């Protein structure tokens, strides 16, 4: 996840700069230097494209080629010929369904593992073995079960989302400060109420860390899954445009996928602030 740029971190730097009261510094740290980074990439791309024009289009060429996609993100010109906005929505739908299902299963399992040592001993080896398996390896199994591309893709995302959330939830639950448990005990709080009044809120920062890692990987994986399953989605779009030797659209797709991933992480970080009333742990 270190490749993923953290929008929240950029904003944190920006707000820090405002507190220092220096507008020049704000402009430099949150606008100028990041812009310089992007400029560097474009220059590099341009240079390569100029030297080997057979290899790839230059940035202005790519922009002109993509103008239709950019101006009409939501066109519908027949079955399967949809604007990039629709493709994005289709991919997001799969990711979100799989991710939410994964979270609904992973958080309770993480609680069980974190609270009970026998559960931890029983489930930890299974998790340790499944965790390093590329989620794509589950695709044939999913296709065998569902016989359909769409549920299979969602299933793969579901599996992808499980492990980081389970592991982080279990870590959070097992590391709830004994002081908090002591408070609950002295107040004679019943165990089930301790779970949702003490243990759940205390481990929320860890749970959110797990969710953010899960969602990040899920967004990585959906592109690969869609390349394999085909159908409507941003991943298949990348593959399809490559087959048509339309590299300009692939560049556009890479940009769109990157920005969407960033926004997903940012949205989850905002949700964390809303739910926990606390600043998120920076996960970079």
């Amino acid at each position, binding site marked *: 996840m270190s490749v993923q740029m953290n929008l929240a971190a950029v904003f944190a730097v920006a707000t820090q700069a405002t507190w220092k009261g220096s507008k020049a510094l704000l402009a430099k740290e949150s606008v100028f230097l990041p812009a310089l980074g992007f400029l560097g990439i474009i220059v590099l791309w341009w240079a390569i494209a100029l030297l080997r024009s057979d290899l790839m289009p230059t940035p202005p060429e790519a922009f002109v080629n993509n103008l239709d996609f950019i101006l009409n993100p939501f066109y519908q010109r027949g079955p399967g010929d949809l604007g990039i906005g629709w493709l994005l929505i289709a991919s997001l739908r799969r990711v979100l369904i799989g991710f939410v299902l994964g979270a609904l299963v992973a958080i309770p399992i993480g609680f069980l593992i974190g609270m009970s040592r026998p559960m931890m001993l029983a489930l930890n080896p299974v998790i340790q073995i499944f965790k390093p398996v590329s989620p794509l390896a589950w695709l044939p199994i999913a296709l065998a079960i569902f016989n359909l591309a769409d549920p299979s893709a969602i299933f793969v995302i579901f599996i992808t989302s499980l492990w980081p959330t389970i592991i982080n939830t279990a870590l959070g639950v097992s590391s709830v400060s004994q002081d*908090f448990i*002591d*408070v609950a005990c*002295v*107040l*004679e709080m019943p165990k089930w109420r301790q779970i949702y009044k*003490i243990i759940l*809120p205390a481990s929320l920062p860890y749970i959110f860390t797990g969710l953010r890692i899960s969602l990040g990987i899920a967004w990585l994986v959906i592109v690969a899954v869609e390349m394999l399953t085909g159908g409507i989605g941003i991943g298949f779009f990348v593959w399809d445009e490559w087959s048509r030797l339309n590299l300009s659209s692939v560049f556009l797709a890479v940009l769109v996928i990157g920005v969407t991933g960033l926004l997903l992480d940012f949205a989850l970080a905002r949700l964390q602030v809303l739910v926990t009333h*606390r600043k998120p742990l920076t996960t970079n």
Partner: protein
Amino acid sequence: MFKSTLQSPDNNPTQSSEANFLVIENLTKAYPASNGGEFVVLDNINLTISANEYVSLIGHSGCGKSTLLKIVAGLERATSGLVTLEGKEVRKPGCDRMMVFQHYSLLPWLTVRENIRLAVDEVLEGLPNSEKAQIVNEHLAMVNLMGAANKYPDEISGGMKQRVGIARALAIRPKMLLMDEPFGALDALTRGKLQKQVLDIWENHRQAVMMVTHDVDEAIYMSDRIVMLTNGPNAQIGEILEVPFPHPRDRQQLRESSLYFELRNHALNFLDRYFSSDD
């Protein structure tokens, strides 16, 4: 080794149940040691605390004074011996013996008000909401925290946090207050201020208090009796020091009396004696 027991003015001799409010009998706490034997922390502790008495436990770190407090709280079990509160055996934690923790133990996801409310909700479950809110407000006012009621624990100072801890403890109306080095993590100025505040509150609402401390001045200023533990392992009650100053107490007046220095020197000598035998 016990000094003669002076009755505090409001200690009515007819009420023996009040005098034997908390009774610790032959209490021993031991952990299994790695060599198969036992590591005895507390050895045969006997102590009685009356209903309106402020008692301090003092001793070197590691002597087991916090363990003793936790056993009274029910957070740890004694290996043998008996702890009774109003004649009933203490077996598990209970809201009749509320703790004030050294590191405050406030829930960081709740505001100051919500932290106190959580305790009130849990213990005074049957009360209507308006009455609960009233209790929370009263106790916020008692520790001068009305202005910070809606702040989160990491937005307030250590002294304020401990005031929340004290308000939370008092709000559930415990029969007994257990304080584990409540001022230990505070700077000296804040500590002095908070000691005075807590003593003021206690002087207005007397109840049984057991406070662990390692500060002799704090123990003399605040408590009616000082229980001095010998060094662990096998810590025992070495001596119980009566502090005969009447309440309400004024720290400056106390410091001017020669008795204060006698008590202080006596306690320090006791601690020094055990210190030199340790290291």
